[in-house]
């Protein structure tokens, strides 16, 4: 098991949150969140729906402001130095907003311009990404004509085009076909090996387990477990991460729940 001190010794910290809180009108979406992510780490951010994963990422990316607490990304304060922070991360949102009347190529060029990338370099990188995901032929089609998976590929390419130090990925595999998902997971491993820091939010436990050496589990806005998949399973007395997750987040036995559901439907 890897404790916090060991992680910080190995990896210089790239993401730090201290008492990060987001209060909406009637409830706390995120409550006093404190964690760190080191350089080159891939950290899985797990939790049931409404646990506060996306809210945390939205705070870290500057989409919403924290009610209290602080956070730094790549050494810059998210509130005081938002532009410096934004220069250093790439973000794949859960349901991505795109300017859909632009073509895939135009959108990537637009994002590259916002990051001051040389147009030739940006064009080359855009082509490489689009080819990698098998949509280079659709480069000049408008995004509104793309399928959900194709849009997701463009969002991933847009997040990577400026070679960020930190990646925030919120359900990045949504809509991706199996081949592209495999390629993307491989890219993430290589980026991590090259020193990129990745915060990976997902509901798919298998993927997180395979991809992320460290996992943070959130429930109702607070961290309820942190460590390697094995250590979390061990601590809860369960055999797998899936079972540990269900126990930690208060989900009853899945088979029993399914049986009750079908009985309620009269089957």
């Amino acid at each position, binding site marked *: 098991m890897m404790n916090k001190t060991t992680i910080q010794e190995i990896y210089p910290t790239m993401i730090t949150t201290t008492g990060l809180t987001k209060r909406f009108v009637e409830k706390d979406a995120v409550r006093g969140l404190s964690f760190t992510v080191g350089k080159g780490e891939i950290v899985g951010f797990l939790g049931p729906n409404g646990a506060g994963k996306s809210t945390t990422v939205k705070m870290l*990316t500057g989409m919403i402001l924290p009610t209290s607490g602080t956070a730094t990304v790549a050494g810059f304060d998210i509130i005081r130095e938002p532009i*410096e922070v934004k220069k250093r991360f790439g973000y794949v949102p859960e349901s991505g907003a795109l300017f859909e*009347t632009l073509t895939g190529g135009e959108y990537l060029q637009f994002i590259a311009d916002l990051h*001051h990338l040389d147009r030739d370099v940006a064009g080359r990188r855009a082509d490489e990404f689009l080819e990698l995901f098998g949509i280079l032929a659709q480069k000049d089609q408008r995004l509104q004509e793309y399928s959900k998976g194709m849009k997701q590929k463009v969002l991933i390419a847009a997040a990577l085009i400026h070679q960020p130090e930190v990646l925030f990925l919120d359900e990045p595999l949504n809509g991706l076909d199996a081949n592209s998902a495999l390629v993307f997971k491989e890219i993430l491993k290589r980026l991590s090996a090259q020193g990129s820091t990745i915060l990976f939010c997902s509901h798919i436990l298998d993927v997180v387990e395979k991809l992320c050496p460290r996992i943070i589990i959130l429930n109702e806005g607070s961290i309820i477990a942190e460590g390697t998949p094995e250590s979390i399973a061990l601590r809860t007395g369960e055999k797998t991460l899936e079972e540990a997750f269900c126990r930690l987040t208060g989900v009853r036995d899945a088979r029993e729940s399914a049986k009750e559901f079908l009985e309620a439907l009269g089957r």
Partner: protein
Amino acid sequence: MITDRLLTLFGVDPIQWRALLRTSYLLLRRNPGVVKGLKTGSTSRVAGIVVMLIFYLILGIMFAFVPWGNNDPSIAASLVLIPTSIFLASLILLEFGATIISPEDFAVLSVQPVSSRTYFAARVSVIIILTLLFAAVLNLPSAVSISIRRGPLEGFVWVIAASANALATGMGMILLYAAALRVIPYRRLMTLLAYMQMSLSFLIYGGFGLLSSRIGGFMSGITMAVPWWWDFLPPVWFASFTALAAGIWTPLSMFLALCGIVLLAVLLPAGASKISLSYAESVARAAVFESAQRRPVRLRWMVSLLKRSEDRAIATLIARQFRYDIRFKMTVLGIVPLTALYVYQGLQGGGKFYDPFQQGLDIRGIAGSSLLYVAIILFPGILKDEIGKSDNFQAAWVFFTTPVDRAALVLAVKRVLTVYFLIPYLFLLGFVFYYFFRNLLHVLMHELVILLASQLLLQIAFFISPRLPFSAPRGLGERIGLTTLIMVAGPLLLLAMLAFFSRFFYTNAVSYLVGTSALGILVAIVERLLRLRVSRKVGGLEFAG
């Protein structure tokens, strides 16, 4: 480059500024406009902005006759620049509002390293370019007319006055939006913005109504006596530039021209501090909070008025869209002022409302009061069209994947409009009629005819363009054509219909019974035909998402 240095001097990133500007241009150019064909699956579209430019160019050519026929350059210029300002303001308000307040901007740009200043500079640049573009098509024909009539110097000054007027209008509108955003908590912002748009529309349409009565006299060669508030209007200040160019150096024209210069000098830098990405953020938050945190109002009583399940579903959908889809709400509320203006002018024009059963054919009376009836087709007509469109049009997949009779859904929209808009309006109209007629039976008989006539008009509207509710994306400039058609053709059609009824059916009880029955039968036949047409049209529709 000089531009780059200048932008950098003001803290604007020139590369990002250009990227944002280029993207705005592409988004605007590709915004779908008027659908050309009605054939199923037709994708032939004209860029909305092109349609709008052509429409305003025609208006501009009409304006060019004002300075041509008159010798008072200041008043002639005012009579062109005031409506220009009104048109530009309403354009920003109704068509390009999203250019100032776009929640989508925040969703895409908030995670990019774009500073507020750069974002602002790009937004303002877009508004200025659009305003100048539309001012050009509205005012350049007048400049040509002036140049030919009075020489190139006056034509050139006209261009300067028109540009200054357009800039002031654009910046003024930006400041108005920004001021509202500054003082209002963001949760209430979007709702309030919708009502602000409605209030401004009142001002715009009311002002235009007032002005149109004066232009008529001026064009007939009558010297126009300007009202006391005339010189307080900013377009008049810019118009006085033309008086100076014509050599009319009176203290008043010099003072007014100075006011114009000062106004621009104040507005331009004031606007510079108002729009930022944080401003877009508050808009985006407002959009999120609107949908997430407002307590839904119970609709049971309202829906219970309808029998069919499709009607109830559509009534619920329309009511909820009105409450939570801010753009739909803004559109609906934007129709209210125009409708109210027509009602007001109808009441004014009719003088003492005539009782058609007592006075027989009175074409002047009908013409005067016909505007009151226009509201009957104006509001449901535009609303019918708006209900077909939504930013959430992709949610219409549900109409294609559930075992629903799609034709019934389209016709449900018609019934909902009848129950919730037409009948209440006719009810109100009944009070107006009773006040003038003093005969309840005549009021009821007249109302029955109007109800049937309005049903027929609504059927025609659905016949021409049957659409599933909230199933198509919004396009730029679509409303211009429809509103113009309704405003021009509506009064003529109604006038003819009412004159026909007054002449043939209101003469005695038998004629009335025969006429009303015939109209009723016609409505029933058209309803049948409509059902066939709608079934055929929507049967071949494909999901647009």
